[in-house]
Structures are given as C-alpha cells and as structure tokens.
C-alpha cells in the first residue's frame, strides 16, 4: 500500500521535511521512487511567482531540444536552477543526466494576453515538449507552470534525497505547499511519469489505493480535454476529474466528492438537492471511482484537501500546529514533522468527507 503525505505551512518549508514525513512511513513503500510537487515557492524562485517554471529531467540532447523549442516559441529564460547533485557510488537511484528548473518569461506576443490564454499556452507547450522528448526517453517534462516545481525520481527515497542534497535544509529551495509520495505505482511499469503526485494547470493530486474504475475513467477522460493524456497510472484519473469538475465545469470543490464517490441512491432520495445529485450521477458516472482510495489534492489557489472513498478503505490523518498542517497516511509521519503539536486535535476524516485546509490554515470539514 502506498503512503502519501502533504505539508501546507504559513512559512516556507524545505523538502527535507517531506522526506522525513515519508521516511517514517517507510514500511508502506517499496523504495522504488520518490516524487514531490512544490507549490507557492520560496528561496530562489520567490521573486518569480508570476512566471512559469519548467521542471525537466532529461538527457543532453533532450535539454537542447527543449530549450530550442521554447526559444522558438518565444519564451525567454529568466532563471535557471540546476540542483547540485551528489552522485556518490552505491546510491540506489536511476538518475537522468540533467535536472533542470528554469523560469521563463512569456513570449512577447502574450504581453496583453489574458490569464486564460497564458494557461492554455503553458499547457500546450508542455504537451509539445513532452511529445518531442518522448523518443528515446530524451526527457520527462513534469510541469510548466508558475510557482511550481516537480521532482520525480526512480530509486530509494533516502538515496534520492542524498543525491539531490535534500536532507540538509536550506533557504534556497522551499515552498509553502509540498505533496509527496514514496513509491512508484505497482500496477503498471515503472515510468517516471507514473509517479504521484500528478500535476495539471495548477491542480495537484496524489492517492493511496487502487482505482478499479480506471478503464472507465480513462476511456471517458480521453475525450474530455486535450490535456488528459498519458494514463501511466490509474491515479492520474483523480487529477483529471478534479481538473474537469473544478476548472472545466467550474463547480465548487465540494462537488468533486459527489462525482468520484456519488452518494447512494437511497441517500440521494432524501436530500433537498436530489435533482442535482442525480444529474451528476447520471452524467458523470464514468468518472466515479469505486475502489479504495484516499486522495490528497491541491487547487491552483493553494487550497489543500483530502477525501476518501465511500467505504473508507484507506487511512489518512491530519495533524496541525499554529503555522503548519500535515497530511499523512500514518500518524508516525506527522510526529516526525510536528512532534510538539497537540495530537488530540488530529483529524481522522470519515468516509464521504472532504477536509479542506485554506490559505490561513483554517480547516473545513464537509460531510457529503
């Protein structure tokens, strides 16, 4: 079973915290990888929040190809950060030759473009880069979005931390929201793209469990949006549904839960919003998830939330201090990051519940 975790803080947090959080839950993973998405960035990226950052793992050729494509499209690089790696012998890591985090200014033609147009441009650019680098595994483009960096690696999380010098906290590489998982998916091949968390246009999702409606979800999502591609992991579907419900349909987050784990018909019958609930159930039945799952998600505005399947077959705990909230599959993970918190206020979400952490760390619990 996977273990998942997330940290949201009022202060900038170093990824070592995410590593610690996951390390203590080590029993739950098979050391096949580590991945994280950092949002609301501090350190060297803090001054560039409005500009997109590309997260790329690639070969030399891949790097050249990507940069040429970006320049051809009119993007101008304003910042480049290449993490200092520590390639000591004996590390269990399947590293790519280059890890690049580059921030770009939009093409001149987009000076007066709307937010929407910019968002489409970034998505399309990432998809183009991904397709171009696909041949010969020249590279993996994880995200191209303002204020977001993504790292995905194959190997033992401890060694991955060592390789990227992530164990020593510093002020250069920090974020206010970090989501992480310590395992490659087990259902399918080990592919870098298959590692959680998944990211699309400001939305992040990661999950613990199995999506038994993967086939249905996938067949339906393929036609819903051109950004819904890949499907290297059954959990990607959770992200796409989140993106579809919240961004494309423009429905409030509370309806995400109604789509992925619709209420039983018996319960719907007794509700005032029966008509809407049935409409959702019938129109989006192919987006339902019917397997055991706990999902953690981040919205573009930084809101962090978690929700569980209808039968609550996967665990999640939420621990809090005055300036930090931590989600983890197991309490031991939270103890590592917030040892002095009042554990009596820990939240154990119920089935059919969404727990939402706002930007001032206020907690909302929505029973479905």
């Amino acid at each position: 079973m996977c273990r998942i975790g997330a940290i949201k803080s009022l202060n900038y947090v170093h990824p070592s915290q995410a590593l610690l959080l996951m390390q203590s839950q080590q029993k739950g993973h098979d050391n096949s990888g580590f991945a994280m998405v950092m949002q609301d960035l501090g350190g060297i990226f803090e001054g560039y929040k409005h500009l997109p950052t590309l997260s790329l793992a690639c070969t030399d050729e891949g790097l050249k190809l990507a940069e040429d494509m970006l320049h051809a499209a009119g993007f101008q690089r304003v910042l480049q950060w290449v993490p200092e790696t520590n390639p000591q012998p004996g590390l269990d890591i399947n590293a790519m030759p280059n890890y690049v985090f580059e921030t770009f200014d939009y093409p001149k033609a987009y000076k007066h473009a709307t937010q929407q147009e910019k968002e489409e441009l970034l998505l399309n650019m990432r998809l183009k880069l991904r397709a171009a680098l696909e041949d010969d595994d020249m590279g993996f483009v994880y995200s191209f979005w303002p204020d977001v960096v993504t790292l995905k690696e194959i190997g033992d999380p401890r060694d991955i931390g060592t390789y990227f010098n992530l164990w020593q906290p510093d002020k250069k590489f920090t974020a206010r929201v970090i989501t992480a998982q310590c395992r490659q998916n087990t259902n399918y091949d080990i592919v870098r793209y298959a590692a959680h968390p998944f990211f699309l246009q400001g939305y992040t999702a990661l999950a613990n469990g199995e999506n038994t409606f993967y086939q249905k979800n996938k067949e339906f999502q393929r036609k819903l949006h051109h950004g819904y591609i890949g499907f290297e992991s059954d959990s990607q579907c959770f992200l796409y549904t989140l993106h579809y419900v919240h961004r494309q349909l423009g429905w409030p987050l509370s309806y995400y839960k109604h789509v992925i784990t619709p209420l039983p018909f018996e319960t719907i019958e007794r509700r005032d919003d029966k008509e809407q609930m049935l409409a959702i159930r019938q129109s989006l039945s192919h987006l339902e998830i019917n397997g055991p799952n706990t999902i953690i998600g981040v919205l573009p505005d930084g809101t962090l939330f978690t929700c569980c399947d209808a039968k609550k077959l996967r665990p999640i705990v939420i621990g809090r201090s005055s300036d930090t909230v931590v989600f983890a599959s197991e309490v031991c993970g939270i103890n590592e990051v917030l040892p002095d918190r009042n554990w009596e206020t820990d939240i154990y979400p119920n089935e059919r519940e969404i727990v939402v952490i706002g930007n001032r760390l206020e907690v909302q619990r929505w029973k479905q």
Partner: protein
Amino acid sequence: METMKIHDVTPNDLPWKIRYDASRCTLCGSCVAACSFRAIEPKVERRRMVFSEGDLPEPKQRFSAVPVIRQAHSVKNYCRGCGICEKVCPNDAIGPVRNQDTRHPIVTRCLAGDSIKRGGRKNLEATVRTLDKLRVGRISQMTDPSLDAQRHTFDMLAPFGRILPAGKLPLKINEQGLLVSDGQAPPVRWIYPVVIGDMSIGALSWRMWEGVAMATAYLNEECGLPVRMCSGEGGVPVRLLKSKYLKYMILQIASGHFGWNRIVKAMPYMTEDPAGVLIKIGQGAKPGDGGLLMAQKVAEHIQAIRGVPKADLLSPPNHQGLYSIEESVQKMFLSFNAAFKFRVPVAIKVAASSTSVSVFNNLVRDPYNIVGGFFLDGIDGGTGAAHEVSLDHTGHPIVSKLRDCYLAAVAQGRQGQIPLWAAGGLGRTGDLAADAFKMIALGANGVFTGRLILQMAGCVGNDMGRCNACNTGLCPAGITTQEPALAHRLDPEKVAQNIVNYFLAMDQELKKLMAPIGNSSLPVGRSDALVSTDRGVAERLQIQYVC
C-alpha cells in the same frame, strides 16, 4: 384394418416419436386429455392372438379389440416433445423421444404448400455462446480488497432516459456556491438493470401477463427492486392504465400501433406516468419481420383491447411513413415525448444487425437529445410467432454488437448519453446474473429478458426444438395461449412467486459478482474485469486473452 401407403406421414417422419408401453398403461386417459396438440389419441387396435390350449400345439387364433394410445400421424397434430404426457402419466407408460431421422421440415412444406411457422427460439445452434467463453478474471485482492456481498451495500440501478453531458446540464451556481437547476433536462429514471422484456398481452395468456405484472409490483413494493416490465405491443388493460401500477410499466408501441388507441384514450385518467415508452423498431429473434399474432390467439379480450376482429394480426415490418432515423426522431419521439408532457423517457428497440451501430450513432448525435435508451435485441431471444426460416436463419448475435455500440460511443466521448440495454439469449443457461454482469462490463447499462421469464413461469420449451409451439395458441403450460382450459393450467400466483424468487436470487448473484471486483456500483464498461480463453473473442471484444 388401416392401410398405410408410403407417402403417408408416420411418426418416423415427425420430430418426436411417442414411446408407449402398453403393459404399464392403465388407460386412465390423462395423457390424451393433457396433450394440447392432440398429438396422441386413444385408438382401438384389432389384435390377433395365437394360442394353444391342449397338451400338443394346436394353434388357434383369436381377434380382440384392444384400446391403446397412439401417436397422431399428422403434420398438424404432431408431437412437439413437450413431455406433458410423461408429466401426467402416473405409470411412466408414455413419453416423447427425439427422432433423429425426422423429415418434418420437408413433409410439412410439401403437404401444406406454406411456410412453417412456430414460436419459441432459434434452434439451429445450441452451441457454446460467446458469453460462456468469458470469465470474470480480474479479482480484487490486497490493494483493492473485494467487498462482502452479504454485508456491503450495493447500488444497482441503471438509467433509462437521455443523459446530457455534464457541461450541458441545466445547472448554475447560486450565491451559496451550490449547484441549482436552471432549466429542464430530459427525464431519466433509475431502474433495476434487468427489465422484463416486451411480451404482449396477446402473445401471453392473460393469466401469465397478470402473473408477470403481479411479480413486477411485488418486486417494487415489497422487495425494493425497481424492476420494470415492458407491455409489448398490443395494449394494456384499461384498469391497469388507470392504476398506480402503471408507474412500473414501460409502454411499447410498434409498427402496428395495436392497443395505442386505448392508451391514448386512457391518458386523461392516468394517475401515474408510465415508467417509459419503448418504440419497437425491430426484434432480435426475427429481425426485419413485423409482429405476428395468429388468429388462434386473438381471443375476445384481445379483440377488445386492440379493437380488432379475430384474424391473424400482422404488424408491418416497418413503421409506415418513416424512411430515416432523423424522421423517426422527429415524428415518433417528439410526439410521444410531447404526449406525456416530456416527463416520460422514450427509448427505441432495434434488432442487432450489422447496421445497428449506424443507427446508434445517428441517435447519439440527435440534437434534440430525445432518445432515452437504445434497446438492442440479438438473435438468441424468443418470439411468440415467426416464420421458421426467419427465426432460424436471420439475425445477429448480441454480444459483439452491444460492444460495438459501446465502443462507438467511447470513440466519440459520448458513452452513457444514450443508455444501452441488451438482450437476446441472455440467461439461456439459466444464469441470468452472470450474463447480465458480463454484458454490463462490456458496456451495457442493463439487460432485458423475455424468454427466461417464460421459463420461470414453467415453459417447457428449449433450444433443441422442444415445444416451441407458442404460435399455435396451444401452449401446454398455459403461458402463450388464450384457450381458457389451457390458460387455467397456469397459476398466476405461482408465476409471480417464481419470478420474484428468481429476481431475488439473481440480485444476490449480481452482488456476488460485483463484490470480487470490488465494485459497489454497476461496472458499466469495465471490460478489464473480463477475460476470455478464446483469442478470437478476446480480440473482437477488446478484452484480455488468457490461456
């Protein structure tokens, strides 16, 4: 003494021969009385007996008249192998035996100069079905635990009605951030995924129809299973139209429009909306043929409901005046939707055929969003009456055609917008739950069945040519007859009880199949749950091949 000529029909020409053991027979007469086809008759035979009374052989002969039971030698009153005689014989003295050497198809045509008609089902290929080559192969364990069929709750309902894509739903967000309605959407009903297929009140005996209707009401009101029954073409008793039970009925209209006059006249008095309207374009057992109700079965109450004389009732194979799908959508769907003020979903039933997918695609693209279901009927189903040549030699299997329709919808990102319902030989092995589950995993929203309902009621027919005399009006089980004496053989309460019990068992079995794949709602389109050991089947249906 009878003189037999070689051109006379004898039992050896017929599909069944009667095995009769005169030594066991007490001549009680039960079998003769029970045979609705008059295929056996009492006869007196003149028998010669040679005997000798003295010490030395001194043969003498005696002639005596002996009563016996004999098989009728006629292509009209031939034995259908129904076995009712055997059922009623207290001494096991009589019974039908299949005649491998039958010349029935030839002599019947030669003598009658007419096409052979019969009811029942296709008898040509009682082979292994595609569905039997599929298994539920993806079992949840550890990472996605199986559910407990007994303890967990399951949500087993299927939509009936046109479904709009989410972006087109008439919803808006109010100031409280809640979705509220902002307009009208097509009506959708959530019903049990197994519908009792369309069998008309003319095809079935009134007692059978009553039994099915009773079972439907009981399943809804006492068992909590929202099972719907389709009326079939031919109308509905007015009392039922005006009753609250109408909400469990799907009213059918076919090309003959039989019975609709009554339905239309009853509309102002209806206290409930019907569950839906099903427009029958075609039937799987005899695709391309219209309805056929032989005069024998047009009893008085049928004449009254339909307003017809006692004559063969033939629905035309086509809806007159409709030459295109667009036209049918506009004329039929709009008028029936309008008739019930757009509150009742209207679906269509077509026979599976090489062209089904184009019909489906056309309907899926219909801009009025009005077609509320695509009922697809395959060859292995049954029928009340048909020309044997159509029954045996036309038609298309259901499994791959259903799958084609589903995948056509997937290719357009429109799956689920017109719910798919499939039938045609489902439950042929007696296990409807397994067949329904597999069809659902292949993309059906639900299934419908007619023939199996007859079998629940006690039909003795089978796929190997036993009985299948539903067209004659002489159904020995009282199911497809309007002869009062025969209909009274059927106990409607028992029919209802059997159907209810079968549905309860099936419901449990459906859960028993959903639980191991870890799903508490219907696995529509979860083809990943299925595997096949037949490479051809696996490729055709796009599922996993295993060996």
